């Protein structure tokens, strides 16, 4: 089981780096992260040796860039016909779904890891709390994984990559925005307390900001992992239904 999953993962990951696309993606990710952190995030003005300005923007960074990775996960295979070859090999559906997901997650992980110069910057400039920073990186990676899982499931549902991108980005936007103070503010005053809390709990935003504040609550990790599990299961069902279309 693990062997096949890893073989599939390795093939998929190799595929990312076979074209310039992967490198372009990573560069754009890093440039955006930099611009958002140092200019929009008022990194220098804040005068704090932490990476809050960096991590604050991750949900929005992922919103735009992660669906670009997930959109081609299954759509490409279905469109080119390689899915027929792939799904008639002696592999389990779970191995196929996990292998592809892992490759995408590792790829985003690589892009995230390449932001280490930001960490070096605060290490040079001051005395940051490295535990918080490490926890934030882990939380960010988990969030990326959740978004990827959503994107993978949507990619399995359509052959058109543009549609996959737009649907994923839209759904993720709703999940992020629902937890922001702006949106929650719309509900306070007239909506029942329980509903407001439910919306906040369902939102990616709330769970992520908690982690970046150095609060490594297992519930937040559990939230991201639950999303991953749910959407990967949906992914498997969708692929099984649509592979021959």
């Amino acid at each position, binding site marked *: 089981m693990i062997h*096949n999953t890893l*073989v*599939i993962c390795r*093939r998929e990951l*190799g*595929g990312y780096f*076979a*074209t310039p696309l992967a490198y372009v993606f990573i560069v754009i990710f890093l440039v955006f992260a930099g611009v958002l952190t140092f200019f929009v995030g008022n990194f220098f003005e804040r005068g704090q040796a932490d990476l809050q300005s960096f991590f604050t923007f991750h949900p929005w960074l992922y919103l735009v860039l992660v669906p670009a990775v997930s959109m081609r996960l299954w759509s490409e295979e279905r469109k*080119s*016909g*390689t*899915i*027929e*070859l792939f*799904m*008639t*090999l*002696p*592999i*389990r559906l779970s191995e196929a779904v996990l292998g592809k997901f892992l490759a995408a997650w590792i790829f985003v992980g690589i892009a995230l890891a390449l932001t280490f110069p930001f960490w070096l910057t605060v290490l040079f400039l001051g005395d940051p709390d490295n535990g918080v920073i490490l926890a934030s990186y882990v939380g960010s990676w988990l969030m990326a994984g959740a978004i990827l899982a959503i994107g993978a499931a949507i990619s399995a549902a359509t052959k058109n990559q543009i549609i996959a991108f737009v649907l994923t980005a839209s759904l993720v936007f709703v999940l992020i925005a629902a937890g922001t103070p702006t949106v929650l503010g719309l509900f306070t005053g007239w909506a029942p307390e329980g509903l407001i809390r439910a919306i906040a709990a369902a939102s990616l935003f709330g769970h992520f900001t908690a982690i970046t504040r150095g609060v490594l609550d297992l519930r937040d990790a559990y939230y991201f992992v639950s999303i991953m599990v749910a959407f990967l299961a949906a992914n498997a069902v969708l692929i099984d239904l649509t*592979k*021959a279309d």
Partner: protein
Amino acid sequence: MLEIRNLYKNFGPLVAVDDVSFTVARGEVLGFLGPNGAGKSTTMKMITGFLAPTSGTALVCDADIREQPLAAKRQFGYLPEGAPAYPDMAVADFLRFIAHIRGFRGKEAAARIDHIVELVHLNEVYEQRIDTLSKGFRRRVGVAQALIHDPPVVILDEPTDGLDPNQKYEMRGILAEMAPEKAIIISTHLLEEVEAVCSRAIIIAGGRILADGTPTELTARSRFHNAVRLDIDPANEARIRADLAVLPDIAAIDTIEEGRVLLIVPRDGRPLASDIAELAEGRDWRIGGFTVERGRLDDVFRAITAPKPQLADS
């Protein structure tokens, strides 16, 4: 080795495969013949577990594709229609991926890859990316991945499509060589391929099996089976026709190639050759050539699969 049981598939009101059953034994090369849209590819997709049948199943070496898909998938090699392969991979990497999925590692994987590359002649494109290959080479890569694990059952959807005559010949040679050990099923529209490679043919149209037999048996159904072809001097045609009138089993005498050839078609494929030969000599017809036709598979194919003419509305 390969048993198909009552496969049935419908897409809403459209019945693509209608109760198809057959078996392929070891040593057999079965040609799956039919017009476009007949249900050949759909049947193959169901056998390989890509498409779920509406009902019925396939057993590959006694493993049911619906109940034990993994066990079944290990027993066959499949070349899907269009020979899809990952375009951004080099041939070498692609074959290595397939070898690993099939459970081979290290030296054994390398040995298997080398062997299949030799067999299918992929040496010159080994390092090339698949999207840079010609159609013929892409198909060969597809066949290579289907055979790399030396499966007992081989399922090929149009294996020689897009190959030039030399490559077709080579591919058929490869199939013929491995045929005694395996159960092979190939789908094709090429009748010459059926005659060249297949030990048995099934004609399918409209989702149903319409004929099942050896190529010889099928060609014998042809209108032209046992027809006699004579190269004559056109001046003698009238005389020859008059002489032939004495034979009772002639259905028709066709003049072709501007009067230089007479085609004598028998009733029900009855043998006329010796009677005609006797007459030719006895009556001094001065014929230049004498051929007995075995029959044409394309007539049989057309006769069986062509849509029946509709009655006009009055």
